[in-house]
């Protein structure tokens, strides 16, 4: 018994003392990837991981079928064809663990840079570590507006954030009243002027709540009810009652999966009849949510990538095909953004022609990737270097999708905003329960 304990202790010690070995393989560029592979967001973590891995695969070999610069040569051309190696770590949704893993990647694995981390709270601590060590970090999927307001010199974000998405929402609502939505006549303002929002009481949700409040004021909407509810609550009926009592034209939500499911079920049981239901991605964009079937037809959700984008962007279709081969299902918001995040790393390295942090920093600050290169329907990627926001991609854009019954009877998302790229006529008003 004691011997075993002793052995275990020695073994543990050995693990902790593993020297910081960095074998210098010349043709290898290590990127640290930190995602929530286990824990409550494990499902999203799988998508994120696959997206990044697919992008690395495309970058590392010549793929003639794909219309992307990085598919044309194997590895990073300006670095002598060096290949990308991803070192993937699991932060389990824990900011402290995320920071520890970032240190491990930077100091032990000697990564060139970091990609991650989905949860804004983890991205915050990880980027603080990167900032301290002067290691570049590109974030593809955290949407808290504060991340790029900190003036960090080593942090860049490709995805639009919640402020943009919320602005999109209000642009969309205004457009609706002007008859710009595909297939819908101009809606009288009075019908949708009153709003009711319920956001979860977390870092992310309370930020969304603030954005909704600010934009409602700016666009002249009446936010009759702005609820912050306890996430993972056993009962949401009081929240829903208050929202219904406010008689809103549109109900807005920021919820993760289990709350989103419970919310829809509660709305249904209370026979809510708003004209519009809008979700801020997250729980509204998960397979479990789609499985609710007919109950979600007509619900809107913001996203940066919807499978129907494939219809208008051939490149997305090409990448999607590979992704389906790999995972068995379409690209989604999480995987597409993770793909784009790693893709940005490839282009930055190509431009820098070096793995020196300074060179990468300079490349990030001057890079400009045209939209034609991307799977996501953005104008491109270009980071702001001054002003209120530092390191934010200014050419990104969000989508608003609507769950509709498609020809094959399945429920799928169709783009309804931006209006000019709508893939299907919008269903308005929401059927009601």
């Amino acid at each position: 018994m004691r011997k075993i304990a002793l052995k275990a202790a020695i073994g543990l010690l050995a693990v902790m003392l593993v020297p910081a070995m960095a074998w210098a393989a010349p043709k290898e560029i290590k990127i640290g990837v930190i995602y929530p592979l286990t824990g409550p967001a494990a499902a999203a973590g799988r998508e994120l991981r696959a997206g990044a891995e697919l992008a690395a695969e495309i970058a590392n070999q010549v793929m003639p079928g794909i219309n992307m610069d990085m598919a044309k040569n194997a590895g990073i051309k300006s670095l002598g064809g060096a290949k990308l190696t991803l070192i993937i770590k699991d932060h389990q949704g824990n900011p402290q663990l995320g920071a520890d893993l970032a240190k491990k990647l930077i100091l032990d694995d000697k990564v060139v840079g970091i990609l991650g981390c989905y949860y804004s709270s983890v991205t915050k601590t990880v980027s603080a570590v990167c900032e301290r060590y002067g290691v570049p970090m590109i974030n593809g999927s955290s949407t808290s507006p504060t991340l790029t307001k900190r003036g960090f010199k080593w942090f860049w974000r490709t995805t639009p954030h919640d402020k943009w998405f919320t602005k999109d929402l209000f642009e969309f609502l205004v457009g609706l009243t002007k008859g710009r939505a595909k297939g819908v006549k101009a809606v009288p303002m009075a019908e949708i002027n009153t709003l009711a929002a319920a956001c979860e009481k977390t870092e992310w949700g309370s930020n969304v709540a603030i954005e909704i409040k600010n934009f409602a004021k700016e666009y002249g909407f009446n936010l009759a009810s702005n609820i912050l509810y306890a996430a993972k609550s056993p009962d949401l009926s009081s929240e829903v009652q208050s929202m219904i009592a406010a008689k809103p034209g549109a109900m807005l939500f920021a919820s993760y999966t289990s709350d989103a499911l419970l919310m829809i079920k509660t709305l249904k049981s209370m026979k809510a009849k708003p004209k519009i239901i809008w979700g801020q991605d997250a729980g509204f964009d998960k397979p479990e949510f789609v499985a609710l079937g007919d109950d979600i037809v007509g619900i809107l959700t913001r996203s940066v990538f919807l499978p129907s984008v494939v219809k208008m962007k051939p490149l997305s279709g090409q990448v999607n095909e590979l992704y389906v081969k790999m995972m068995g299902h379409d690209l989604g918001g999480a995987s597409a953004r993770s793909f784009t995040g790693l893709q940005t790393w490839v282009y930055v390295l190509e431009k820098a022609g070096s793995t020196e942090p300074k060179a990468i920093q300079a490349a990030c600050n001057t890079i400009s990737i045209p939209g034609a290169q991307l799977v996501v329907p953005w104008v491109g990627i270009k980071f702001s270097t001054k002003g209120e926001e530092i390191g934010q991609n200014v050419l990104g854009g969000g989508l608003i999708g609507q769950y509709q019954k498609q020809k094959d009877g399945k429920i799928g998302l169709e783009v309804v905003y931006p209006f000019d790229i709508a893939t299907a006529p919008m269903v308005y008003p929401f059927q009601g329960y």
Partner: protein
Amino acid sequence: MEAVKNAFDFGDMPRSELGLAAAALAFLLWFPAMPHSSFGMATMIQFLMFSLYGMGWNLIGGYGGQVDLGKAQYVGIGAYTTAVMMIRWDVPFWFSMPVGMALAVGYSFIIGYPLFRLKGHYFAIATIATSLVLKDLFEVWDFVGGARGLELPLKGDFPNWLYLQFREDYYYYYILLGMLLVGLIYMNGFRHSRLGYQLRAIKDNEHVARSLGIDVHWSKIKAYAMATAYVAMVGSFHACYNFNIEPEDTMSLDLSVLIAMMAMLGGAGSMWGPIIGAAILVPMKNYLGSWLGGQAGFAGMDLAMYGLIIMIIAAAQPRGVYGIVEAMRARRR
């Protein structure tokens, strides 16, 4: 003067224990100089933090037998005091830490007074309730950033001793190790103090304790306040070390439970218990957890094993790992 003498008096401990402690201390002092991975260093820092949290828990939970499942609220008070003072008034860590401790202690007196009217399970659940109430309030209180949390500004020049901002982790490590040593010596003094003895008598039997002239209610409150100081101190440190704090990661029930678990696993009511518990659980969480969950794809298996170990120890030896060691020693004699 006697208090100081008591604090440094380790005479009542078995030789073998002191020898092991000295060896462990030598290892801890030497650790940063040895070749190690940075993840190992981060793990060690967490080990030190949880040792101190656990020592705080042990003071009231182990010596006093009052099972406290709300320690995280004091982590939060410490962390938020340091963060708010630094962000709003640019106050260095070394000034805000004592303020945080004082605030936490003051708050612990206020809620300790009604809290200790309750006993046993009622007390344990009430501590959860107060902790959750405080967390809920912080989540909507704009002054402290609400659920969005607070982010400490980087001061730039490293190392910054005043604001506790360093690039290399070994600075943090040594500061924590210093805290641990101070904490241990203080704890040793506490064990030998009047309150220390009285508290253990209270744990054995409150009626007997009262018949010996001990004001049980007040003694518990005092010990609770001392325990609070430990936890708040590390909470302040946590804010500086992590650069970002949220109610969810400083005040959650999970953290409270983890603190209690480590101390109980190591051995409640013994001086080394919380340190042993942290030494077992923190590496297990960091290494086994990330290996099984990340690489092997068996998410949950590590924690399931952890739960199993806890069940076995609770059933076999309620005094935890330290209790097992003690029992083995007793048998050999």
